[in-house]
């Protein structure tokens, strides 16, 4: 046998001259008490300099772990990169020592994370954190680094960079923090930037800003990017090519146009189908992907997607498909594409055409008038009030029986507070709330309790909205018991019935919440809300914390329940496409005021308020062919503080159509016909006449939705 020691492996010849990164059969497993969790199970891809790769998947797909593995940031006791190669610029990163790896991190490869508040060190100023990286990797002096840091902060669009240099992370808004993180990441001019869900935690309009910024910087710095996200719209806007991941494997690869015009894998079809699209005709009934994302410790046999795949057949259960090569560089891991198969796979477009006929009688159930909520800010030992947070500042609206009112807005607009006020979970500062004709503010004790039975709430976070120490059965039984709707055995019966109604196995009634997935927990929350037969439910962002494929399931469930039980909803959300699917009427809030209120079809086909237009335009579209062509309204700046709202029209500081009266006079919510209300001077005939705008329509930057005829 050959006695010479093995030579250090040579890097493979790159497939293209500009190749920067090549990952070969990467596997990252987590080991715990004899069970192996295959978080990343053999992925391979390649990335050129300056190219942007999107990695899309849901929970359990392994997308985040794959990003962390590139930088070898996996916690070593439970996790380990068991095999594979990561060729970066000629070196195998997995063979480097820790010291050599530290040279790479932050310097050649940088990473930004989802939640900047936890990724930035709270006890150092952001300036110091950037300086740290510069001094470490680029060998600058403190003074030089400071200069460079301020330049970077300006480059990422932070106003007053010299001032902000001295700010602590908690003093900045979410968008600013993310910009600061980007500045830190870019400080050493890395060749590759890994971004793990960087915009998921941000508001719609801020997300649009950050995405624009990242695209710009990527171009200017000629940086390669790996963009990890669950949001196909973002992928479409930013990425050149895409890996779709499921259960730790790549199930489809291709360029972005290929993925969206000719998607191949049934999972990709499911992802594309299951959510409502804002520029297609309105569908009330969504097409979800059945089942849940897989448990990585107990993967199904054969193809890991087969339990949820409408096209699965015996071979799919028996054996795992390899990655098949398709023309033009697309690859797909699915037996439908086995070369020996005679027929080409046909994608069944199963759109449920069932339109839930719901005649909404215009009988008001909930009437809100002049609702105001101030939160006092106190200082000092004696708790003197120094200012107020004006969360809700005089809003009026009505919810009719059987109707869904969609309430949209960004963080700080007061929509969540409104939901709480209506149920008297918070005490209003002023205003009236009439439920079924009865003024809620005057109720006390037992009377209030009996009204509580009729008005319920479903919370956003399926993790914290269920008591972890109670069984599911007792959680659902609680409203029944509190309102004495049944006794003893009958309570159990009801609980079983309700569990079935929301799509859960009734045998699970004595399990604990943590044994369920997010989507299932949300079903439990819904079950609790309907347990006492309410008339009205406030849904506070009920699907925002769920996986994309589960959202559609829950939305369909909510619609079914509304139809069967005659419920009325307030649906609070910031996702305009979801709101479009479920609402009969839509209201937009900004800094505690309602700025626009209209029927669904009217709202989406004819948005009037400039803020509404900006929100609709900020929604990322899936249409990479027109990527550059669409004009988006990107609002400048952040949402102002509710402690000191702007004078006159609250939106005037960011409004592209601002004119004379806007900073002096506050616009009222006026009915401009066909039950469409707007609070904007542009539509006030008095002011419009003054400005010489009488009779002229506001210049539209883009038709944001399809024509009304197809609605």
């Amino acid at each position, binding site marked *: 046998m050959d006695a010479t020691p093995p030579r250090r492996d040579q890097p493979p010849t790159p497939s293209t001259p500009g190749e920067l990164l090549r990952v070969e059969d990467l596997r990252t497993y987590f080991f715990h008490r004899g069970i192996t969790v295959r978080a990343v199970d053999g992925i391979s891809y390649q990335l050129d300099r300056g190219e942007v790769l999107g990695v899309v998947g849901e929970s359990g797909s392994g997308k985040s772990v794959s990003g962390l593995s590139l930088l070898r940031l996996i916690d070593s006791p439970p996790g380990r990169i068991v095999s594979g190669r990561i060729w970066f610029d000629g070196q195998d990163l997995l063979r480097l020592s820790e010291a050599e790896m530290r040279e790479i991190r932050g310097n050649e490869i940088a990473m930004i994370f989802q939640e900047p508040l936890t990724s930035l060190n709270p006890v150092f100023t952001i300036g110091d954190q950037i300086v740290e990286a510069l001094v470490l990797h680029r060998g600058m002096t403190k003074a030089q680094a400071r200069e460079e840091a301020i330049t970077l902060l300006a480059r990422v669009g932070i106003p007053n960079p010299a001032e902000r240099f001295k700010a602590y992370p908690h003093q900045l808004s979410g968008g600013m923090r993310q910009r600061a993180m980007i500045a830190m990441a870019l400080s050493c001019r890395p060749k590759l930037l890994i971004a793990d869900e960087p915009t*998921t935690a941000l508001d719609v309009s801020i997300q649009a800003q950050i995405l624009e910024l990242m695209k710009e910087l990527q171009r200017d710095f000629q940086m390669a990017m790996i963009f990890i996200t669950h949001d196909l*719209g973002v992928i479409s806007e930013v990425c050149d090519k895409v890996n779709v991941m499921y259960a730790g494997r790549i199930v489809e690869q291709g360029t972005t146009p290929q993925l969206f015009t000719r*998607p191949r894998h049934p999972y990709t079809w499911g992802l594309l189908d299951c959510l409502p699209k804002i520029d297609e005709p309105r569908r009330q009934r969504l097409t979800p992907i059945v089942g849940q994302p897989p448990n990585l410790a*107990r993967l199904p046999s054969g193809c890991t997607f087969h339990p949820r795949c409408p096209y699965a057949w015996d071979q799919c259960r028996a054996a795992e498909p390899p990655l098949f090569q398709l023309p033009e560089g697309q690859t797909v891991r699915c037996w439908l594409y086995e070369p020996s198969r005679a027929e080409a796979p046909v*994608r069944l477009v199963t759109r449920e055409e069932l339109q839930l006929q719901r005649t909404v009688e215009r009988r008001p159930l909930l009437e809100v008038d002049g609702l105001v909520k101030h939160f006092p800010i106190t200082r000092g030992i004696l708790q003197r009030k120094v200012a107020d947070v004006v969360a809700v500042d005089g809003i009026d609206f009505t919810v009719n029986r059987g109707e869904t009112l969609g309430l949209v807005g960004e963080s700080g607009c007061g929509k969540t507070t409104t939901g709480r006020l209506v149920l008297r979970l918070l005490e209003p500062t002023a205003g009236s709330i009439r439920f079924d004709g009865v003024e809620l503010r005057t109720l006390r004790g037992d009377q209030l309790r009996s009204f509580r039975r009729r008005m319920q709430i479903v919370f956003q976070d399926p993790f914290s909205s269920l008591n972890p*120490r109670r069984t599911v059965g007792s959680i659902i039984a609680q409203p029944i018991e509190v309102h004495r709707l049944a006794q003893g055995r009958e309570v159990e019966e009801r609980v079983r019935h309700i569990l079935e109604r929301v799509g859960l196995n009734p045998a699970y009634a004595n399990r604990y919440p943590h044994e369920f997935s997010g989507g299932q927990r949300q079903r439990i929350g819904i079950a609790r809300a309907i347990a*006492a037969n309410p008339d009205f439910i406030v849904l506070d962002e009920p699907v*925002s914390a769920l996986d994309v494929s589960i959202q559609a399931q829950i939305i369909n469930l909510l619609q079914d329940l509304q139809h069967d039980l005659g419920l009325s909803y307030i649906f609070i959300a910031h996702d305009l496409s979801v709101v479009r699917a479920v609402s009969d009427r839509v209201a937009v809030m900004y800094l505690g005021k309602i700025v626009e209120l209209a029927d669904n079809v009217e709202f989406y086909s004819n948005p009037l308020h400039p803020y509404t237009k900006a929100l609709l335009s900020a929604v990322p*579209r899936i*249409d990479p062919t027109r990527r550059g062509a669409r004009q988006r309204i990107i609002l400048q700046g952040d949402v102002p503080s509710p402690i000191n709202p702007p004078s006159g029209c609250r939106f005037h500081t960011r409004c592209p159509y601002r004119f004379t009266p806007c900073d002096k006079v506050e616009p009222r919510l006026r009915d401009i016909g066909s039950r469409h209300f707007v609070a904007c001077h542009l539509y006030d005939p008095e002011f419009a006449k003054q400005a010489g705008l009488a009779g002229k329509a506001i210049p539209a930057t883009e038709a944001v939705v399809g024509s009304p005829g197809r609605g």
Partner: protein
Amino acid sequence: MTDHDAALERPQRVTAVPTTLTLEELASERPESPWRLTWRRFVRHRLAVASAVFLLALFVVALLAPWIAPYDPNAIDLQLAQFGRPAAPSLAHPMGSDQVGRDLLSRVIHGSRVSLAVGFLATGFAIVVGTVLGAVAGYLGRWVDMLIMRVADMMLAFPPLLFLMAVLVGVRPTALTISIAIGVINWMYVARLVRGEFLTLRTREYAEAARAIGVPAWAIIFRELLPNAMGPIIVSATLSIPAAILTESTLSFLGFGIQPPTASWGNMLQNAFTYLRDYRAWWMGFYPGLMIALTVLAFNFVGDGLRDALDPRSRID
């Protein structure tokens, strides 16, 4: 047929990562209740488990003391302790005797009853009072909170030992009265802890959900939230017991606690003081002192083990 273009827009304000089960939950074959998970984590700490076994044995010994102790702890044997000289440890008396011939092993065994009783009673009292007051203060806030916390502050201002001594001069010092007195001195620490927990817990959404359902405040505090605060309370209790035992020992040592002839580890130490100096009767102080040290140590290890097992980082909520 348009099967490609779609707009998906999902900025989330909340950053809850959907459905990522912890490694433990993924690994377990049959998902378990929160209590079982805690138990599983506890038994991983060998020191804590060993200490728990020791304490269990001690508890059994204390319970069965009248049957286990070889001699009557108060039986004087002047043959054994001639001229007031304590007898050294021998086969008949493994721990020796005191100056009037009472068997020390029996006295140590009976003393464990006193120490454990006072430890548990005092802590029990402190926990109950402290939890109720702390929960109410934390949940209801505002003036109730202020009132309760100011009372706690007042109590905290008393030097504990002096307070106890003052109280026990007036009242007859039995195990019960001593326990209550120690409880009165200790409830504030528990109350502060529990108040802190409840300040957090009341913001939890399931508490809000209970309010939305119409559950009255007291039921929310004691049925919804309290089970979730048990972790720190249990740890605090486990660590308070040794403190109470030490306090009792100190009081007995100073002469304010359990009065002789009833045996308590503390007053045995006090008795031992003189004889250690004059007769070199090391066994009189060594054994009671050793028992105090071992017991206190054992409780501390168990408390540490519990704290790790109930670690909020891996707690469900």
